[in-house]
């Protein structure tokens, strides 16, 4: 155990800090759930790429810096510290890319990864379907082989970023006779193919944060398949626990929120309910605990360890922490907390409301917390299945 950064790590931190100080836009970008905001965020991804900061964990030949997980954490800390824009390309870089690197052909890697790093292709995910939310093995959307194509019919839903994204990755049922985890295939496809229609779904704040996607005889070439036909579940799951579990929510994000909450409380200490201090103290403790736990996991992985139930304990911990921090802010703001971003005067207040709304989704998406508790109880604690 050595909880000190190496000289190299310290230099790396200084380098990203300097670059961000020079490049982070001085004005807040529009939400990437609007067309205009989406393109603004794409520009930012291109800017990041120009500094070779868009995918720091990737190998240098693919546009990355070959960072290990500790360096990635440092990058994220500085990124959140600088108040840099949200990553519109998160789906691609953090979720799809690790899978592509493990299961993709050389040709696929060359075809997709550089454009992803450059912000040229922005990716949406296609997991959920109506009736297959937390129970992902219930997928019914079909991809039937027809010569050198798959013909896709059916529907995906809750697809984040899909309203404006370029490409989609997801699981489809290639064997119509199969059930549950069998007979699924992992497919990558451009969202402008004929037969695709996209219906935006407005989220709580009124903006289309996700979409339903309808497939009507959509033909996708076989070379867009990742892994073997029928092996899609394994492809999707193999890396699901791994770095993904770690990368979904980096600790810097919550440490930044906690810092802001502390400031907010200090600014309102005269009028706020003194018992809210408890929630503020807890926000510091919990965001630190989350960071420490992430460093511990990263250290273990670097020494060849595997991610076990951390993915599930993490999910519960950060989603509940995020709710609690944003609720505390709402209570400090009191009657002003209801003002939205759309309100020109609301300024910082409305960012807390945005955060509060967003935090509501935390315990639900990426596997509801109920599902995560089942996983912890059965796989980590060994309790009997019901």
């Amino acid at each position, binding site marked *: 155990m050595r909880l000190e950064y190496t000289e190299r790590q310290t230099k790396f931190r200084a380098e990203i800090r300097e670059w961000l100080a020079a490049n982070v836009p001085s004005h807040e970008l529009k939400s990437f759930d609007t067309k205009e905001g989406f393109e603004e965020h794409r520009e930012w991804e291109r800017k990041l790429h120009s500094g070779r900061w868009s995918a720091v964990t990737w190998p240098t030949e693919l546009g990355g810096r070959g960072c290990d997980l500790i360096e990635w954490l440092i990058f994220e800390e500085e990124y959140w510290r600088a108040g840099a824009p949200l990553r519109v390309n998160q789906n691609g870089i953090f979720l799809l890319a690790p899978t592509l690197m493990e299961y993709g052909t050389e040709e696929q890697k060359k075809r997709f990864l550089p454009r992803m790093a450059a912000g040229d292709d922005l990716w949406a995910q296609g997991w*959920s379907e109506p*009736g297959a*939310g*937390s*129970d992902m093995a219930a997928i019914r959307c079909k991809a039937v082989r027809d010569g050198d194509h798959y013909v896709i019919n059916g529907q995906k*839903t*809750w697809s984040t970023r899909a309203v404006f994204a370029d490409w989609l990755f997801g699981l489809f049922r290639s064997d119509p006779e199969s059930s549950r985890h069998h007979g699924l295939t992992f497919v990558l496809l451009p969202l402008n193919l004929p037969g695709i229609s996209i219906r935006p*779904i*407005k*989220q*709580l*704040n*009124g903006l289309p944060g*996700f979409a339903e996607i309808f497939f009507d005889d959509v033909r996708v070439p076989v070379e867009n398949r990742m892994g073997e036909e029928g092996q899609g579940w394994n492809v999707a799951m193999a890396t699901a626990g791994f770095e993904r579990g770690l990368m979904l929510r980096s600790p810097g994000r919550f440490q930044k929120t906690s810092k802001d909450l502390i400031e907010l409380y200090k600014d309102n200490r005269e*009028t*706020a*309910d003194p*018992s*809210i201090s408890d929630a503020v103290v807890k926000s510091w403790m919990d965001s630190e605990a989350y960071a420490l736990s992430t460093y511990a996991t990263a250290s273990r992985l670097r020494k060849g360890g595997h991610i076990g139930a951390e993915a599930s304990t993490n999910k519960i911990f950060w989603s509940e922490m995020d*709710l609690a921090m944003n609720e505390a802010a*709402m*209570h400090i*703001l*009191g*009657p*002003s*907390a*209801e*003002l*939205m971003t*759309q*309100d020109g*005067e*609301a300024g910082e207040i409305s960012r807390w*409301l945005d955060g509060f*709304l967003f935090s*509501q*989704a935390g*315990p*639900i*998406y990426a596997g*509801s*917390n*109920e599902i995560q*508790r089942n996983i912890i109880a059965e796989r980590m604690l060994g309790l009997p299945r019901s």
Partner: protein
Amino acid sequence: MDFTFKEDHIDFSDSIRKFLMVEAAPEMLREIWETESGRSKALREKLAEQGLTALSVPEEFNGIGLGDLDWILIHQELGYYAIPDSLSDTAYLAAWLLNNLPGDAALKKEWLPKIANGSARIAIAHPVNPMVADAGNADLLLMWHNDEIHAVQRKQVQMTLRTSIDASRRLFDVTWKPSDATRICPASHGASLWQGLLDRAALAAAAHLIGLAQRMLDLGIDYSAQRKQFGKPIGSFQAVKHQLADVAVKIEFAKPVLYRAAYSVMHDKSRRSVNVSHAKLACGEAAWFSARKSIQVHGAMGYTWEADLQMFMKRAWALNAAWGDQSFHKKRIADFIYSSGAALGPGETFT
């Protein structure tokens, strides 16, 4: 000692519920919210036909002359159906304030009949709220100014619309100039009127909140009984059952608190303000909790604009901080229980 409502109270609120069920279905609310004013003349007329606008107005001004306790079940229904109208502000709060103005104020004669027949909308500015709800379509604004009461017409003030997360709320920053001409009550008498108004407003908000809590619970129950996962309705899973059961417990124990507060206001008991704060906190907590649990049961659907749940959640979040937020009301209770000689413990429940 009798802690039950009279049958005519219950019958009246039942009839209002049946009326609102038809007239305020979620699709209709969405339509109204999307209008610029956020208010519907047609709905207001129907509310007046039901007698709701006349409830608090004395009979001499063409009203029904009922009181706080008569309103409480009605406010609950208005909350349950998330009615987008300044009905409570106009027909409950402003009516009470005007009616209690000292002397034979001309204002009473002018406005109380208009409140009763539903033709007037009145907004109220109180310093506990940073903005003024429904100022934009108010025919009259009753303004706080150092405990004085002032009455101004809409054209006498400047206002800017603010944007609330609750699309049914119309909030305004209002700037105006108090003068001798606008003053309708001096601070000497106004202070206690404003106290009475604040308590009534918080009481009404509490009742709306418990109605909202119940509505969100009902939406959660409906959704969980229909939605299937792993081949079973999710409402058959213990995790879902227990979350909804906890909401039911919170609602059950908030309601009698609300009713005691209404009684205390009606009879101007010495603990009126403490009991109102208790009601606001208990009902607000029930609504906040119900929102959290209902969205969890709804899954991703609960996070959408199209599921009805959002309308009620947003109203709940907004009302929870209106007319005194948690800090405000908690402090009123803390000041009471820590005061020396406070009558606490068994046997003091109705003191």
